[in-house]
C-alpha cells in the first residue's frame, strides 16, 4: 500500500480540520473572481470561528476553551493537508498569546467568539525599502507591508520594537490599507499610518518585547506543523501521480531516478517531522518555549520544504506549473511558509548569535 502520512497530532479535531480544508480548497479552486474568493474566505472564517477554533487556547475564564498548543496543532495539522488559506497560526496562537500577555480579557473574549478579526503586526513586520520606518510616539507613522490578515479585519494588534502593544480599530483616522493575495492564496494587507493618534487605552501593554518574541515563535511552530502536514500530503500526491502517469510506456513510478528522489523527499520530510514533533512535546512539557528547537525547525522548513515543493513541481512536469493540481497549491503554501515568523536567515542569525 502506498505511503500515507501520519499526522503530527491526530484525532477528531484533526479530521474535522482536514475535511474543512479540502472543502474550502475545492470551493476556491472553482472561483476565479477575487471578490468571490474573498467572500468564500470570509464565510469559512466565520465557520471556523463558530466551531471555536480561535477559542482553543484562550483561557476558560476569558471565554475560551482553555486548550493547549497540541489542540491548535491538531487543527493546523488538518488544515495544512488542504492548505487552508486562513491565518490559523496568527488567529489561534499569536493574537491570543499577545492579548493574554497584556491581560486584555475583553478582547480575548471577542477573539474567542470570533467577533473580532485581528490582523497582528509583529515588530519584525516587513517594510518596503525606502519607505518611512514605522514609528510610534503617541502617534503612529509609517507603514508595513504584506501582513497576513483575516478577511475583513476589524482590529490591528501592533507590537512595537519598543515593547508596546497597541490595539487599533482598522477604521481609525489615518490608517489606509491595500489588500493582496499571497502566493498561497491567503490574504495579506499593506498598512499605512499617517499621524494615527493612539489613546492611552489603546496601549494595551508596555515592556512585552519578550512576550512578542514568544508569540512569534509560537506562530513559527504552528507554521512548521502546517508545513510538515502539507509536505506529507505533497509526498502522498506525488507518489499517486507518478504511479498513475505513464511515459514512454512505463509508469513514472517505475523510474529509479524518480523513486530515489521521492525517497530523498521523504527523508527530508521525516527528519523535519521528527524535529517539529519534538518541539511540540517540549513546548507542552515546559513553561519555557523551546525557542532553539523552533528556530532550527523553521530553518529546516525553509530548506526541506522548498526541496519538497520544487521536486513535486518538477515531477509533475507541465502539470507542476498549474494551479489546478492540489499538490502544487500545497507546494505554494510551503514556499510561502519560509517567509512567515522569520525566514531562514532570521533564524540562522539568532541561533548563531547564541552559539557565539
Amino acid at each position, binding site marked *: 500500500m502506498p505511503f500515507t502520512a501520519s499526522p503530527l497530532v491526530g484525532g477528531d479535531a484533526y479530521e474535522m480540520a482536514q475535511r474543512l480544508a479540502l472543502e474550502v480548497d475545492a470551493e476556491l479552486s472553482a472561483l476565479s473572481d*477575487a471578490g468571490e474568493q474573498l467572500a468564500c474566505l470570509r464565510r469559512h472564517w466565520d465557520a471556523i470561528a463558530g466551531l471555536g477554533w480561535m477559542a482553543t487556547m484562550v483561557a476558560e475564564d476569558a471565554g475560551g476553551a482553555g486548550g493547549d498548543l497540541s489542540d491548535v496543532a491538531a487543527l493546523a495539522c488538518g488544515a495544512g493537508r488542504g492548505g487552508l488559506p486562513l491565518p490559523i497560526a496568527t488567529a489561534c496562537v499569536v493574537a491570543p498569546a499577545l492579548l493574554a500577555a497584556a491581560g486584555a480579557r475583553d478582547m480575548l473574549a471577542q477573539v474567542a467568539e470570533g467577533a473580532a478579526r485581528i490582523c497582528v503586526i509583529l515588530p519584525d513586520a516587513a517594510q518596503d525599502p525606502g519607505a518611512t520606518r514605522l514609528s510610534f510616539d503617541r502617534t503612529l507613522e509609517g507603514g508595513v*507591508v504584506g501582513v497576513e490578515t483575516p478577511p475583513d479585519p476589524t482590529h490591528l494588534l501592533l507590537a512595537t520594537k519598543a515593547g508596546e502593544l497597541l490595539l487599533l480599530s482598522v477604521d481609525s483616522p489615518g490608517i489606509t490599507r*491595500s489588500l*493582496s493575495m499571497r502566493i498561497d492564496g491567503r490574504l495579506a494587507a*499593506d498598512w499605512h499610518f499617517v499621524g494615527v493618534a493612539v489613546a492611552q487605552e489603546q496601549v494595551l501593554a508596555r515592556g512585552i518585547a519578550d512576550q512578542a518574541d514568544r508569540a512569534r515563535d509560537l506562530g513559527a511552530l504552528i507554521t512548521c506543523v502546517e508545513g510538515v502536514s502539507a509536505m506529507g500530503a505533497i509526498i502522498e500526491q506525488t507518489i499517486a501521480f507518478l504511479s498513475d502517469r505513464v511515459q514512454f510506456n512505463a509508469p513514472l513510478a517505475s523510474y529509479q531516478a524518480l523513486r530515489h528522489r521521492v525517497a530523498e523527499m521523504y527523508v527530508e520530510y521525516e527528519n523535519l517531522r521528527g524535529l517539529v514533533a519534538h518541539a511540540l512535546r517540549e513546548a507542552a512539557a515546559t513553561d519555557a518555549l523551546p525557542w532553539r528547537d523552533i528556530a532550527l525547525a523553521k530553518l529546516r522548513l525553509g530548506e526541506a520544504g522548498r526541496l519538497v515543493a520544487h521536486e513535486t513541481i518538477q515531477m509533475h*512536469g507541465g502539470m507542476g506549473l498549474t494551479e*489546478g493540481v492540489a499538490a*502544487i497549491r500545497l507546494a*505554494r503554501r510551503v514556499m510561502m511558509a519560509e517567509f512567515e515568523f522569520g525566514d531562514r536567515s532570521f533564524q540562522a*542569525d539568532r541561533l548563531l548569535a547564541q552559539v557565539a
Partner: protein
Amino acid sequence: MEVDYEAFRREVTEFAQTRCPPEIRAVVATYRKLSRKIWQPWQQILHAHGWGAPSWPKQFGGTGWDPQQRHIFDEVMAENDCPPQYHHGLRHIGPVIIEFGTPEQQARFLPGILSGEDWWCQGYSEPGAGSDLASLRTAARREGDEYIVDGQKTWTSHAHESDWMYTLVRTSKEAKKQQGITMLLIPLNSPGITIRPIRTIDGWHHVNEVFLDNVRVPVANRIGEEGKGWTYGKFLLERERLGGANVAPALKNLERTRELVAQELAGETHRAKRAALELRLLLAEAELRGALALGKEAVAAVMEGRPLGLLPSVLKLSTSVTHQHVAEVAMDAVGERLAPRFRRIDGSGPNAEAPGIEWVQNYMYMRVRTIYGGSSEVQKNVIAKQLFGS
C-alpha cells in the same frame, strides 16, 4: 568574405540601443511575460531594417548571417533588454515551411511571419503526453479536401493572442506511434476551436488549453506528406539545439539580482544575509561563465560544421538550474515583503501591482526551465545513454 564580428557587434548594439522603444525594453528588464503586444511592434521594426529573420535563408527574407553573427545578435539583444526574437512563427514553423512547404505555402505564410502581422502558436503537447510527445491522440480524419480534427492540445503558449496554430495530429492508428502523425496549419478562428487559459503558478497568463471539436482544415494546410509530421517536428527540435548557447539573458538576470540584493539588504543589519546571498550568486556566476564558454564552443562547432554532441544537453541542464538558483536568491531577498503581495485585490492606493512583484512571479516561472524544451530527466537520460554507450 571575412566577417568583421566586432564591427557587427557594434552595429547591432547601436541598433538595439537606439531603435528599441524604451517601453518595450522596460518590459523585458522587469521580467514581465512577453506578449504579442510587445513582440509584434519590435518584429516590425526589425523587419523594416531587414533584420526580421536572422535565422532564415536570404532568398526567403532572411539576413544571411552565419551562426556566429546570429549568436552575437541574440547576445546583444539580451544585453540591451530587447525582446528575444523567439516567436513560434519566426523560429519554429517558418523554417519548417521553408524546408518542407510548397511554394504556395511559402508565399502564403512567410511574409506574414516576417512582418509580424501573423502570429503563430505551437499545438504539440497534449494532456497525458508530457515528455512522451509521440503518444499524442488528437485525431484528424480526411473528408474530401479537408481534415476533420478532434482532440485537445495543452500548454499552448500564446494561443489566446495568435492567428494560427501549427499542430501535430494523428492520422493513423495503425502505424507505430511516431508514424501516423501529420502536421497541419490551423487558423485559430476556425469554428470548433475553444481556447481556455491555464492558471499557472507564476500568475501570468501565457499558456492555454486548445479544444478542437470537429475543426475543418483544408488539406492545402498540411505540411509535406500525411504521416510524416514527426519528421518535420523533429527537424524543428534539431534546429533549436543552439538555443541554450545564449547565456546572456541569464547573466543579465544575475547582474540585476546582484543589484537587488545590494539594495534590498543594504546596511549592517542585513550583513549576514547579504553575504550569504552574494556567495550564492557568485557560485551561480561561475557556473554561468562555464556555460558561456560552452556556448561559444557550440557556436564555433556549428560554424565549422562539427557535430554538437552532448553540448546542447549540458548547456540546457547547466543554465536551467542556475537560472533557478538565481531566481531563488532574488526570492530570498524580497520574499518576505513581496510573496504576500502576489495578486493585488483592492486598496486605497493605485490599483497596480506591487513594485518588484516580478521577482516573485519570475521565481515561480523559472521552475518551468527544467521542465520544458526537454526536461532535466530526459536530458540526463540522453547524456547517460551517450556516456555509457547504451
